[in-house]
């Protein structure tokens, strides 16, 4: 059990979700995960964190602000990710280095996953 258990379980309960992970964006390492048997969580974590970081940096370079939600559709599945990147305000630090990643079937309902994911992001410190 970790502080992320309920968050991950809520995401994994969604129809078509194969895996949900909390990943460190800077390291690409798993903090906590719910995976199906045989899934290579470390690989997903490393690649999804890299993808999210590149998207965040690209959005920032294009002066589009922070990334709220990232979705990658592939032939045999999709990856959704959301996070609250760390930034500083006069009142202190907001956000975290953590990214929530969901791996889902191609036919999964992205709208529901997105809603749950954005709700889950609010629970990140």
């Amino acid at each position, binding site marked *: 059990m970790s502080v992320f258990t309920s968050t991950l379980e809520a995401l994994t309960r969604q129809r078509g979700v194969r895996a949900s992970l909390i*990943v*460190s964006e*800077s*390291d*690409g*390492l798993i903090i906590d995960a719910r995976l199906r048997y045989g899934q290579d969580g*470390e*690989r997903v*974590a*490393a*690649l999804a*964190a*890299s993808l999210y*970081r590149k998207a965040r940096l690209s959005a920032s370079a294009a002066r589009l602000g922070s990334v709220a939600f990232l979705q990658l559709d592939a032939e045999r599945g999709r990856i959704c990710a959301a996070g609250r990147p760390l930034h500083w305000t006069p009142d202190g630090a907001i956000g975290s280095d953590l990214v929530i990643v969901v791996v889902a079937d191609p036919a999964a309902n992205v709208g529901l996953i997105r809603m749950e994911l954005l709700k889950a992001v609010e629970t990140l410190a």
Partner: protein
Amino acid sequence: MKVATVEPWVEAPLTRYVDDARARLALLLHPSGQVVAQAGFTRAIDVMTACALAAAAHATAGELGRRLDGRAFRGLHYSGPAKQLYMAPVDTARGAYICLTVFDQASSLGLVRMYFDELSRELAAAAPPLTSMREPALALDFERELNANLSALFGRS
């Protein structure tokens, strides 16, 4: 990117690893500290010193692991303000090597570890078997072999 090696079968997997993992530099060395190959940007460091220090750090971590956990620690990660390093052994038919990877914010520990697993598999598959027992480190031809290896690595005549 500079690639230099004294063992040709190492070159392709190591180059691919540096590209895929977005690493700054990868050094393959014998556990004794002898350089086998280098790939990446090496201008800023003295490769031979880095290999000697890496071998020492690997030996230290291995012994620490044996004392704390009953067997040697395999992977070692250090993180600095701008650069990080990951070091782990690679087992092949020609014996064990150590791979030292230096990376920065263009990569991450997760990516480096992931592609390191692929590098280990590729090197294990590519390594030609030893046809004879390896010569002792201080054999008569040590100096000649060392000079030949340094020439191959650094382009000295």
